[in-house]
C-alpha cells in the first residue's frame, strides 16, 4: 500500500486537466502537468527494495 504524498492543490490541478482530456486540445502547460503527474508516480530501484538472491 502506498501513502499519498502529493499535495491537495497538485492533485486538484491534475484533476482539472483530466476533466478536460478528450474535450479540447491540451496545451503545453497541461502536458507538462501530466508529465509531472506521471513522474510523481514513479519509484526508484532502491525504493522497490529488491533483495537479490532472497525472496521478497
Amino acid at each position, binding site marked *: 500500500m502506498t501513502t499519498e504524498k502529493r499535495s491537495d492543490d497538485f492533485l486538484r490541478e491534475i484533476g482539472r486537466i483530466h476533466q*478536460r482530456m478528450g474535450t479540447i486540445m491540451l496545451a503545453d502547460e497541461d*502536458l507538462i502537468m501530466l508529465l509531472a503527474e506521471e513522474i*510523481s508516480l514513479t519509484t526508484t530501484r532502491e525504493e522497490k527494495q529488491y533483495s*537479490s538472491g532472497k525472496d521478497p
Partner: protein
Amino acid sequence: MKRLLIILPNNLGDVIMAMPLLEGQKRNYPDTHVTFFVEQGYEAGLQNCPDCDRIFRFDRKSVRDAAQSPDWRQSIALLKNTIQELASERFDRVINLSQHPYASIAAALVSDGEVLGSQFLREGNHALCDRWSQYLYAIPFARRCNSLHASDVYRLIGGVGTGPAAGRLVVTADEKRKAGELLATAGIDCSGESPVVLQPGAAYPAKCWPIEHFISLGKALAAQGRRLIITGAPAEREIAAALGAQIGGAALVVAGTVTFRETIALLPFAGACVSGDTAIMHAAAALGRPVFALFGTTNPVETGPFGRGFHVLSGRCKKRPCFCLDCKSRLCMKSIMPDDVVALVQGERLSTASCDVYTTAIGEDGMCFLEPIIEQGPDYFDRTASAVTRKFAQPDYQPDFEIANDSAALVKQDSVAVCNVLDRMARALSEFFPAGPSGAVARFENERRALQSLSGIAEFWAAIANIRLNSVPLLDPAAGVRESMRVCLETKEEILSALSILP
C-alpha cells in the same frame, strides 16, 4: 544536419540493448546528430560511445521528489527547463523506445517532426503509429509470439537494418589500465588463463541463479585453477561477499566497491562471464566476451545476450517465459546445474544437459536467434505464432523453417477468433451512422471485451487491436468512430494476410 532524439530512460541493460540501433543509425546516416535521453544513473553504457553525440541525463528523482512535496511547482519549473532545452534542438525525429507514459508525454513535447514509438496526443490519448513500435508494445501481452531480440526490434523501429554489427560499448585505455591495476593488486595474472566473472545478483530474486549453485560453480572453477571476479551493485554486496567467502582465495569480490563503469572495464580481462539476465551480461556480450547467460522467468529470445556465439542456459519449464517476479519454486533456475556451466566455461562440448542450452546466432535475415547446441534440442518455444506475428509486422517475411500442421491449425483458429470479434466490433460501430450514438459505442465496447478472454496468438492480436484503437483521437466523435471502424477492418485484413504463411 538531421537531429535525432532517442528516449530510453532506463535500465542499464535496456540502454545497452539500444546501442546496436545507435551503431546502425551512425552507419546509415553519419550526418545525423544523435541525442540519447536517459535518466541519471543509467547512462554508463553510453559513455564514450562514438555513436552517441550527446547524452541527455534526466534527473527524474529530483522532479519526482519535488512533485511529491508541497513545493510541487518546483517540479514544473524543472520540467519546463528540461523540455525547453530539448525542444530547442528541433529534433527532426524522436524514437521513443520506452513503454512508460512519462516518456510518451515527453516525446510529444520535444518533437519538431516525426515520432516513432509512443507519443501523447493533445486530444488526450497515447498513440503508437508505426507498425514495429506497435509490435514492440504487443510483446509483453504474448511473450511466446515473438522470436525477435529487443535490439533487433529497436533497429527495425529505427529503420536502420539488421545484421551482425553490435553496439559499440567502449572501454577507454585509461579505464582498462585502472581495471588492470585492480586485478594485479589482487594477484590476478591475466597473462595465463583469464579470470571468470560471476554476477550472482539481478534486478529481482526470480532472475537469480541459486547462490548454492554459484558456490558450486565457483569452487569447481577454482579447483581447476581459475580466478573469479564477483561483481554486483551495492545492494548485492552482501550476497557477493558470502559467495566470495565460500569460494575462498581464488575469488576477488568487487561488488559494491566499484562503479558499473569500473565493472565494465574489468570485462575485457575476463575469459568468461556467468550471469543471469543482467546489465553485466549485456555489457559482456557487447564487448564480445564469452557469455554464459542463465535464464529463468525472463525471455532469452527477447533479452538474451545479443550477437553471435554466446551461450544461453534455460531451465525446462512449460510456462517459460512466465515473467513471474516472486516465483517461490524457481524451478527453472534451480534446474540449471553447475556441472553443465563448468563444462561450458571450460570449453567442453555437451552431449546432454540438465537444462536447455543454446548459442546465439545471426540468421541470413540478419536477426539474432537462439540455436539449440545439443542435437535435437528443442526450440525455446514453438515458433509458429512468432512467424505469423513477424509476417504481420514485415509483410515480405517468409519463414525459413517448416511449420507443423497442428501448430498451424491452432494459430489459425485463435487468429480467426480475433478476426470475428473485430468484425463484430466494426459492425457495432457502423450502427453509429447516420443516426448518432444510440448505443452503438456501448455495443462496440461490449464486443471489445471479448478480446480480453482470448489466449495464445489471440492475445498478441488483441494487444495490437487495442494499441491501435487507443491511438484514435476522439475529440470529434464521428471521425473517431469512422477511424475505429477502419482500424478494426484493416487489422482483421492484416491478420488474415499474415496467416498466408501457414500450411
